[in-house]
């Protein structure tokens, strides 16, 4: 059994391209060309070069000594937080801007929730001198002012999404509508492993550099190429897709996906899609999503804006349903405590998204010999306000 995408764009029964006909030519153009472009040696060379010189890859695989002592297992942190722009998001935007150039596109659109993907997109557009429009929910604009300012400094136009709940889901709707209205010159840089095929696969491949590096780095440090477990948080699921990618079909490696339980899974304020979601269609993909009995998409909640999405990517829906990955839900409070713990044990301030992954060590026991790699997907600078409020700092 393969846990990767099949030829038709499905992961098991999840995935596909459930899009209005207006989007078909755009998505089809991408589907026909993406693999060929990604495998082209000149593309590979340019992508690798930018990841090295501009993003600062490879990101270190760091043995977290004091944390390992506390939890009596071997914990490694994959330091995506040290990337340029502060998270794994840039791996994908570098790939997609090069893709857009090769497809002859002259205008970039993107959606963003907390603003990390928006900043990573604005960054690569500035780098390449391409027009950039970022859709962001009106509510998120108000609560993520520093990232809005960053995008503006980088030359992007930030357009508020004022429909629906005015958050990430609606920003994505607005970006899709923009694409419908601009079918020829525009490339849509989706920020996660969501959306119609080929997006989940393309984004996963761009993020796969994470697990590729883990293999080499682990070999260097431990003399093995695979860990016993890989842990990553899942909103849409791009950092998890990247960290899992080279281990998807190697069942000796345990995959642990961490979702945001918000104020508690059954509190009505949660983003734990694997528990609360049912199969449905969101943003062009058949996947697990949070919805009413009547099929209306509901609004998720998490203290972390990056995990605040009502669906998961189709790869993760399949990993959940097949039992290949273990899914764990972590509440706001548990995540915040784990974030603070990492600060004090290792001197690293993590993004709150990542703090969810770190919280599993209180929930789940590992053996002393287990090698557990946690994808440290982002740094916490953007979250200082939330940390300050939570801990009355």
């Amino acid at each position, binding site marked *: 059994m393969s846990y990767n995408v099949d030829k038709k764009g499905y992961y098991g029964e999840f995935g596909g391209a*459930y899009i209005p*006909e207006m989007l078909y030519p755009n998505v089809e153009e991408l589907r026909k060309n993406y693999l060929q472009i990604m495998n082209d040696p000149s593309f590979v060379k340019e992508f690798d070069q930018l990841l090295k010189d501009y993003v600062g890859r490879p990101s270190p695989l760091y043995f977290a000594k004091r944390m390992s002592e506390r939890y009596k297992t071997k914990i490694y942190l994959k330091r995506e937080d040290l990337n340029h722009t502060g998270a794994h998001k840039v791996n994908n935007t570098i790939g997609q801007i090069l893709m857009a150039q090769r497809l002859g596109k002259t205008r970039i659109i993107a959606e963003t929730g907390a603003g990390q993907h928006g900043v990573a997109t604005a960054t690569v557009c500035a780098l390449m001198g391409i027009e950039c429009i970022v859709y962001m929910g009106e509510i998120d604009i108000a609560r993520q002012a520093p990232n809005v300012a960053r995008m503006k400094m980088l030359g992007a136009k930030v357009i508020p999404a004022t429909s629906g709940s005015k958050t990430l889901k609606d920003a994505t709707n607005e970006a899709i509508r923009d694409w419908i*209205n601009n079918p020829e010159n525009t490339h849509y840089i989706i920020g996660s492993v969501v959306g119609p095929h080929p997006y989940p696969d393309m984004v996963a491949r761009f993020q796969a550099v994470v697990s590729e590096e883990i293999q080499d780095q682990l070999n260097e440090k431990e003399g093995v190429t695979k860990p016993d477990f890989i842990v990553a948080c899942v909103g849409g699921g791009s950092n998890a897709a990247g960290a899992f990618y080279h281990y998807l079909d190697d069942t000796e490696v345990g995959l642990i996906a961490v979702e945001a339980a918000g104020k508690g899974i059954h509190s009505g304020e949660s983003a734990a899609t694997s528990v609360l979601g049912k199969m449905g269609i969101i943003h062009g993909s058949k996947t697990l999503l949070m919805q009413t009995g009547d*099929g*209306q998409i509901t609004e998720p909640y998490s203290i972390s804006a990056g995990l605040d999405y009502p669906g998961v990517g189709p790869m993760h829906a399949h990993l959940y349903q097949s039992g290949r990955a273990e899914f764990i839900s972590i509440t706001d409070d548990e995540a915040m405590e784990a974030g603070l713990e990492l600060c004090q044990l290792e001197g690293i301030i993590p993004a709150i998204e990542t703090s969810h992954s770190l919280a599993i060590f209180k929930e789940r026991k590992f053996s002393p010999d287990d090698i557990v790699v946690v994808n440290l997907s982002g740094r916490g600078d953007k979250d200082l306000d939330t940390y300050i409020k939570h801990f009355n700092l």
Partner: protein
Amino acid sequence: MNRIKKTLDQDKKILSIYFTAGFPQLEDTVSVIKELELNGVDMIEIGLPFSDPLADGPTIQASSTQALVNGMTSSSLFEQLKDIREHVKIPLVIMGYFNPIFQFGVEAFCKKCQEIGIDGLIIPDLPVDVYHQKYQKIFESSGLYNILLITPQTSEERILYIDSVSKGFIYMVSSASTTGAKSGFGKIQTDYFQRISDMDLDNPQIVGFGISNEETFNMATQYNKGAIIGSAFIKVLENKGINGIGEFIKSIRPNN
């Protein structure tokens, strides 16, 4: 015989009106339908509201949000429409996004439509290939036409495929846009209308998106079998309610 086919066989240009079920008030659905038929409309598209209508512009989005706030659901729509065929003879089509239909169960949804006397469905985010492989038999056994869309960017090869899978008519999206975005047609649109007309497809085409008044209606139907008005009609309902319907329809086809 399916009412859509019967209507299209007539020697006249078709005026089809879209409105959102449960808007402006939850209980307005049936009154709007009756009033439209009374004023000579040829076909009606009943919009099943969805939380995330990707292909729609602000006007229809807002009406969907309001309808959901009013409490509209698939079940309540079927309940409202259960006796509709005692009063209304013109073709009725339900237009909705796939997720609510998928949750209801595609087969159960189609059966309900058949019981009530719905003639077709328009599901913009159900791609033609998925329909063809998974759902066509269910639609056909329920006597339902699935209306598929084409746009100015749809390739000729794909138009032929869509034509071969379609029944009733092809929904021809006038320009690259969401609903209600543009008004007025230029040479690009008329060239496109002419190009499709010259393809001599098996199914007639009805144009939607960007039609709001007599001028755009006449221009669109010069090349095609008919035209659909959505957002402009929703604005009438918003501003004048059901009482505004007669006047609006007369303004589109003053000589009818």
